[in-house]
């Protein structure tokens, strides 16, 4: 038996065929188990995907309208300097930590060697100090941005402010999780710095959007 081409079966499942052609393909599928099986999968996939409820989107318009009224600007605000300094300090700390904990040349991996390597990845005091400084700089930059957001927030559309509060809460929670597992281990401490970087990025975006909504 000649089967119906796959793209025609797909078009039938997506209701794209003309009525006459759809009837012909249906008739073929009724007599052809292989095409019927393929058609049942195509229809199931479409049903599974399209029957999912759509998310509400009306609340997103306010943010779009605000951005259309006030196109993106790049003001030179004081907080940009704080963020830039924190990022530079973090980059330097990561460099120090990476250089000072660089692994020894590869050696046969016995359990004892693995234990020793793990001990070597414990933080060198200078790398630890650099990481502490970078973390402190990130904290300072976050404080500046949080204060800036607190200043702008009362003038924002309440729905927009609520969404941005949620964004920041989520970023803070992620940062909290990474800090909770931090110890004197370079890799874990660098993940904490990544967490700070993510939190600062969220804060920066929120402040920038707030400024654009309230020039």
């Amino acid at each position, binding site marked *: 038996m000649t089967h119906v081409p*796959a793209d025609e079966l797909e078009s039938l499942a*997506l209701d*794209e065929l003309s009525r006459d052609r759809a009837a012909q393909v249906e008739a073929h599928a009724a007599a052809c188990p292989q095409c019927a*099986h393929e058609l*049942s*999968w195509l229809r*199931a*996939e*479409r*049903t*599974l*995907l*399209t029957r*999912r409820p*759509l*998310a509400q*989107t*009306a609340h*997103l*318009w306010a*943010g*779009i309208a605000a*951005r*259309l009224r006030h196109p993106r600007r790049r003001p030179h605000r004081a907080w940009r300097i704080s963020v830039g300094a924190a990022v530079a300090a973090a980059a330097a700390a990561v460099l120090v930590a990476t250089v000072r904990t660089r692994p020894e040349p590869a050696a046969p991996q016995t359990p004892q060697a693995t234990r020793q390597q793990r001990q070597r990845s414990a933080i060198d005091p200078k790398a630890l100090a650099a990481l502490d400084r970078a973390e402190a700089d990130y904290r300072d930059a976050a404080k500046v941005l949080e204060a800036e957001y607190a200043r702008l927030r009362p003038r924002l559309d309440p729905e927009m402010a609520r*969404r941005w509060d*949620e*964004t920041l809460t*989520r970023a803070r929670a992620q940062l909290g999780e990474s800090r909770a597992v931090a110890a004197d281990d370079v890799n874990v401490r660098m993940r904490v710095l*990544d967490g700070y*970087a*993510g939190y600062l990025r969220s804060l920066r975006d929120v402040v920038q959007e707030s400024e654009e909504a309230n020039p």
Partner: protein
Amino acid sequence: MRIASLQGEVPSARDRHSDEELLSRACAGDAEAFRVIFDRQAPGVRRFLGDLLRDDAAADEGTQETFVRAHQRLPTIEEPGKLQGWLFGIARMVSFEHLRRKRRDALPAAPVDEPVQVDRAPSPEALLLSAESDRVLDGALAHLAEERRAALLMRIDHGLGYGEIASAMGWPLQKVKNEIHRARLQLRVSLAGYLDEGAR
């Protein structure tokens, strides 16, 4: 000829305008026409972004970014009849930029297995009746690489034609067909695996 604004029209009257007409009005500066375009297209764009980004807040922000960019590029649209595909092309860029930024901070993604043919796949009807079908589908979609997932969703969930998907993805037509075929096989392997488990 001056185009009258949609400002002041009742909602049911706005529904009568075609996409082409709305685009023409929006290009002429009618803010209300662009609002109607948003009302019509945003739910689909939001779902597409939700499926690509798998993060509700990011999908909301991506939807806003998509429509802001669309507004800036209104005069560049070449085929007003293919508004949905054009918007999905912008949304796809927005999502990939977001994922690229996110990936810089994350561990490298696990390689995605190439699909294999499901020779004796069970019948899918049981999936439609399962209370877990949404969760199973979500997991199956998560296994697809982002671009492949985007192409499949444009075709099956949003009903775009292969030509529109090719424009939105910036791919040759044959690549669109291959990627959607592979995505579908991969999706089926995951869904069939769930049905097999249920049959045991």
